[in-house]
């Protein structure tokens, strides 16, 4: 590589906000994903010979990974406040891209009150085109938080699964893939560069594919798996392109460098305004496509409800608590890129906020019409992921991460609870096979209700705190005393409020249909065993108290040393992170949002607990809706219901028109062209050559032709009696003609040009 750039400009130093020092645990975080990776390989090859089919190894190694994560978190807490080692600086080209002014003078890295240096450690992966590519870990607040969430939920899901999939035909495979998933997800959150992120991003996708299709004998399951993988591939296209763009624009800002995948460098340069804005915008939009598919954002969300075809523990771990937040995590990870690229600061609308806001409404509205308890939760997950993306879109980074954190617990709790109920009744259909389960499954009932309250966001449960921070973070509450935020995203505040009411309402419906009324199914359901109940209670406990980790400042609810602990340790204050403005929470907003939630509960509660219950008593059977409900009375409501039942017709568009069209008419047409045009012209050319050849052969230089014919005749006669039966004569003729023609053509070419 010829290094001309070093001549071009005097390099300046950009602090990256990372260090290569730090304690041993922080520098060797790669051990954490390594454990489940080992578990995967061992279970795959030896699992069937183990007494418990490999599950014991999976639990043990994920358990150790969890303990290591706790120790790493402790090390990070110490590191965050007490580390004073050397910071890595990158020499950059001191070029001004015009728009850099507003960010550049902010003095990143140096200007922060108490910088937190992320710990980076890398080794060389490969070298191509004279560029070295590294693989390594980037340990900072969000990474450590994700380590804890992933290992904890994974551990609980492992334990839960030993009972839930007990006796399954592919018990060992199931645990092998859980391990592989844990390894990939842990690698994803620790990724030091975007290439590594892309790699683990695809690997978690494959695990998701394999686990959705766990019972692949039935076609709907493998269809769902295919749909998930393909939809994600559509998004990955954006990821590939986005990562490529970033690689080159970062490279051109670093003297003597061809390109760079480094997350710290990318973010630091983007945050310092040293990257061209248009390219950043394009890259951010491309990456958004990946977020939309992985994190189930409208309009690439349709795979997620179908993904519920997989076993319920998988839904809890992968399609609620961890993998689907990979998109959210990726935004958080590359926040410098998104913050600058989409101009999040000081604006009132942008792509990310809109996508998140629309998704949150779409998800919540679709959750209303589901019969399948897991689908309710799936749409709820879409809606909550929309919340997180919207939060990131309005600049409320910490709120989004905090919501990710709390959501992981209460949503995993709900999913596992739904699994416990379904395990008892052998069905997921709330309307025909559930009802009245509170009497026989008290633990499942209590934990499910706790999870629902946390999801709906009533104080003091976890969801309340994180949801309220997001609403405050929109900065749209300026009228009523709240301040701050990065802009005036009033529209997003409204969307968030509406969703809050809807969430409360559909969860009320879900709780009623599952646990209240009278049992409508067959058989005698009974409470699940301890390996299911204990994880449920642990998650329910976290759903109650996790919110206390980030008590807002200003409410005087706790001494200052206990306020905003989550934000303090998780939000990076470093060169690779943009300077974001924090919103101030307000009592008025908290009260209003609580009232909104209560209103949602009240409306749905009055319908189900009041009128449906009364109608059931009158009819003498357990009803799930009023016999003369609004959809029977109003044509408009009926049409609305049809629209929702058909999922806004998106599946028709994707499966029927786009996929079906490509697979059917488009591919068929392309193939017809291939056979009838391209291939036909080849045959035609051959036929013409044969007739022309006959003519030429009779007339032209017999000496040349004969010589070559004889030579090739000798070659072929060596290869045995069999071979001579082939039409070797014809082949030799053609060969001879072609060689003769070649000589003539070469002569012509030399003469002419």
């Amino acid at each position, binding site marked *: *590589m*010829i290094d*001309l*750039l070093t001549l*071009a400009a005097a390099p300046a130093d950009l602090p990256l906000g990372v260090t290569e020092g730090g304690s041993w645990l922080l520098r060797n975080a790669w051990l954490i994903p390594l454990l489940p990776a080992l578990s995967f390989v061992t279970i795959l090859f030896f699992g069937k010979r183990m007494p418990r089919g490999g599950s014991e190894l999976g639990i043990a190694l994920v358990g150790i990974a969890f303990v290591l994560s706790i120790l790493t978190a402790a090390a990070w807490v110490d590191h965050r406040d007490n580390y004073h080692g050397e910071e890595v600086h990158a020499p950059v080209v001191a070029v001004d891209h015009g728009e850099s002014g507003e960010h550049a003078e902010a003095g990143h890295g140096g200007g922060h009150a108490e910088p937190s240096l992320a710990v980076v450690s890398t080794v060389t*992966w*490969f*070298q*191509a*085109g*004279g*560029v070295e590519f590294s693989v390594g870990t980037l340990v900072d607040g969000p990474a450590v938080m994700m380590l804890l969430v992933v290992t904890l939920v994974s551990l609980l899901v492992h334990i839960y699964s030993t009972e839930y999939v007990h006796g399954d035909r592919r018990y060992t495979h199931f645990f092998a893939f859980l391990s592989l998933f844990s390894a990939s997800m842990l690698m994803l959150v620790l990724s030091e560069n975007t290439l590594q992120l*892309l790699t683990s991003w*695809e690997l978690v996708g*494959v695990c998701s594919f394999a686990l959705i299709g766990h019972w*692949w*004998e*039935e*076609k709907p399951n493998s*269809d769902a798996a295919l749909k998930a993988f*393909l939809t994600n*591939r*559509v998004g*990955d*296209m954006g990821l*590939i*392109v986005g990562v*490529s763009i970033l*690689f080159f624009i970062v490279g*051109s800002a670093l003297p003597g460098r*061809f*390109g760079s995948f480094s997350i710290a460098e990318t973010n630091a340069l983007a945050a310092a305004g040293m990257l*061209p804005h248009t*390219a950043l915008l394009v890259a951010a939009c491309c990456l958004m496509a990946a977020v939309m598919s992985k994190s189930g954002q409208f309009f690439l969300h349709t795979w997620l409800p179908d993904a519920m075809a997989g076993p319920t523990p998988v839904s809890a771990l992968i399609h609620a608590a961890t993998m689907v937040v990979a998109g959210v995590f990726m935004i958080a990870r590359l926040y410098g890129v998104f913050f600058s690229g989409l101009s999040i600061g000081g604006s009132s609308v942008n792509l990310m906020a809109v996508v998140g806001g629309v998704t949150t409404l779409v998800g919540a509205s679709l959750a209303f019409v589901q019969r399948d308890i897991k689908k309710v939760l799936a749409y709820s997950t879409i809606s909550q992921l929309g919340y997180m993306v919207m939060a990131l879109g309005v600049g409320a980074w910490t709120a989004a991460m905090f919501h990710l954190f709390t959501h992981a617990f209460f949503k995993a709790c709900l999913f596992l609870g739904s699994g416990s109920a379904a395990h008892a009744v052998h069905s997921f259909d709330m309307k025909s096979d559930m009802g009245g389960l509170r009497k026989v499954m008290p633990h499942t009932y209590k934990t499910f209700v706790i999870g629902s309250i946390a999801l709906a966001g009533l104080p003091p449960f976890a969801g309340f705190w994180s949801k309220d921070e997001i609403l405050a973070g929109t900065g749209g509450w300026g009228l009523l005393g709240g301040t701050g935020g990065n802009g005036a995203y009033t529209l997003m505040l409204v969307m968030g409020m509406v969703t809050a009411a809807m969430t409360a309402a559909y969860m009320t419906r879900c709780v009623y249909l599952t646990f209240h009324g009278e049992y409508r199914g067959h058989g005698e359901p009974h409470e699940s065993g301890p390996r299911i109940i204990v994880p449920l209670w642990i998650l329910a406990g976290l759903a109650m108290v996790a919110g206390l980790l980030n008590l807002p400042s200003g409410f005087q609810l706790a001494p200052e040393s206990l306020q905003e602990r989550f934000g303090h340790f998780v939000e990076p204050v470093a060169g690779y992170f943009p300077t974001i403005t924090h919103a101030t929470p307000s009592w008025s907003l908290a009260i209003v949002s609580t009232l909104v939630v209560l209103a949602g509960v009240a409306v749905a509660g009055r319908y189900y607990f009041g009128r449906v219950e009364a109608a059931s008593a009158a009819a003498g059977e357990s009803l799930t809706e009023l016999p003369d409900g609004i959809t029977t009375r109003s044509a408009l409501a009926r049409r609305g219901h049809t629209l929702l039942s058909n999922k806004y017709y998106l599946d028709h568009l994707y499966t029927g028109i786009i996929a079906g069209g*490509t697979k059917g008419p*488009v*591919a068929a047409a*392309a*193939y017809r062209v*291939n056979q009838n045009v*391209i291939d036909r012209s*080849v045959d035609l050319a*051959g036929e013409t050559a044969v007739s022309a050849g006959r003519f030429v052969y009779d007339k032209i230089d017999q000496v040349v032709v004969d010589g070559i014919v004889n030579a090739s005749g000798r*070659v*072929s006669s060596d*290869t*045995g009696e*069999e*071979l001579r039966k*082939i039409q070797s004569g*014809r*082949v030799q003729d*053609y*060969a001879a003609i072609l060689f003769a023609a*070649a000589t003539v*053509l*070469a002569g012509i*070419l*030399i003469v002419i*040009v």
Partner: protein
Amino acid sequence: MENLLDGWGITLATFSPLVGVAIMLLIPGEREERHKVVALATSLWVAFIGVLLLLWFDMGETGRLQYVVDEMWIDVIRSRYLVGIDGMSLPLILLTMFIVPMCIIYSWNHFPEPRNPKAFLILILILETGMIGTFVAQDMVLFFVFFEIVLLPMFFMIAVWGGDDRRYASLKFFLFTLFGSALMLVSFLALFFLTGAESFAFTEVADNVLAHGVSRTAQLWIFGGMFLGFGIKVPMFPFHTWLPDAHTQAPTVGSVILAAVLLKLGTYGFIRIAIPLLPEAAVEWAPWIGLLAVVGIIYGALGCLAQTDVKRLIAFSSVAHMGFVMLGIATLTDFGINAAIMGMVAHGLITGMLFFLAGSMKDRYHTLEISRLGGLLVQAPRMGWIFGICVMASLGLPGLAGFWGEFPAILSSYSPANGLPVETFRTFMVVAAVGTVLAAGYLLWLLQRVAFGNPPEEFADNPEIVDVTRHEWMAWAPILALIVAIGVYPNLVFRVTDGAVDASLNDCLQVNTAELTDAEAEALGCAAVYEVGSGGGHDDHAAAGN
């Protein structure tokens, strides 16, 4: 240890298979077991030499030709026996030496009708000589001879051991490629005469092209001839139609060798001969090559979606995959060409494996009609797993070899070499990215139909459908291990190719596209290679930056 192979290692490796052939000719045809042993021993011996060649290969100087032999060969036409190995050819030579023994092991009990192991194995060994020879040749005539030697055994393999339509397929394969090689020969001859070179050696001709200043028009025409010769072999859209027929009709091992090695002769020709010898013409042609490459990616994928036969589908997927390789080459950057070589190796291993699997399925089910298959995972779980892994590798899953050919090729087209139209290549990048989605579509669809679900009634209790046999394991396990190993640690290949690719490319092409000013280009002597500033990258980049 001292390098014992210097000076004769390549010759030994190239012609050892012919020694094996000579021995086999002396053994009567009915002693099948002996033929198998001799053939296997020969191919393993060649592989052993390959390992030694690798061990003594100087990794510090992958850009330098090593193990060089330079002797006068045919004095009259000043053709030399000039052979050597550098980092660009080494991975492909090793791939050849690796795949051939696997094919022989696989054939052990699998000889297609009309059997005759003697002739079959002799053909494989002759093929091996031709393939290795093509990769080591450093002289145009020598290259051409080896390039053509490959053609005949493959022709007979398809024509004798092929499927029902073997005559048409084999003839088409033979004539189509021969047509291309004729034009290639025209180009070689024209180049030799126009440069007034003393020999056909690549390096000498390249130097003479730069020094004598062969006219631009002549260069473009000559490149065109090579483009057809190599492009048909790759095969590039729209010259690909021989491929599905040849693959579908060829016996399993023939398909494997065809996919694993033969297609690479074309792409190798581009990076070894066409581009280094004619850099100026390469710059002119590159956008068109890139265009055909991305058309091939999409077109091949659509072709796959329309297929009803497993083998034909895999054949069409080769068109798409080789499109990625050609896209990497078309960028003319060392990054892109590294990706291309990786893509060649990966495609060789992965598609070779897929053809092995298709062949084994055909042995069991006696049909490859997709609509009739199903439930492979139920009846032959291990085989289903292997199929799943290969499908994942083929669709470019990170962690498996295919990814490292695909992603870097897409990446490199964001920033093509100096003098190439940046916007055009960025469009190619997006189109190629769409191709990855389609690839996932047809491959997963294939996986679903073949492996998932319950076995259809007609095969449900068929005792012929057994899991992977011992011979299959022996042939497949090493390939699978390599697919994973390269996927996890791509440096296995990149470390070898990087220096050589860098050395093969003209300096002016390699500078970061965006950052070269006219004056700097002048200083590097780039004016001789392309017209400085003509559609130069920096203007486009500035546009993107605003």
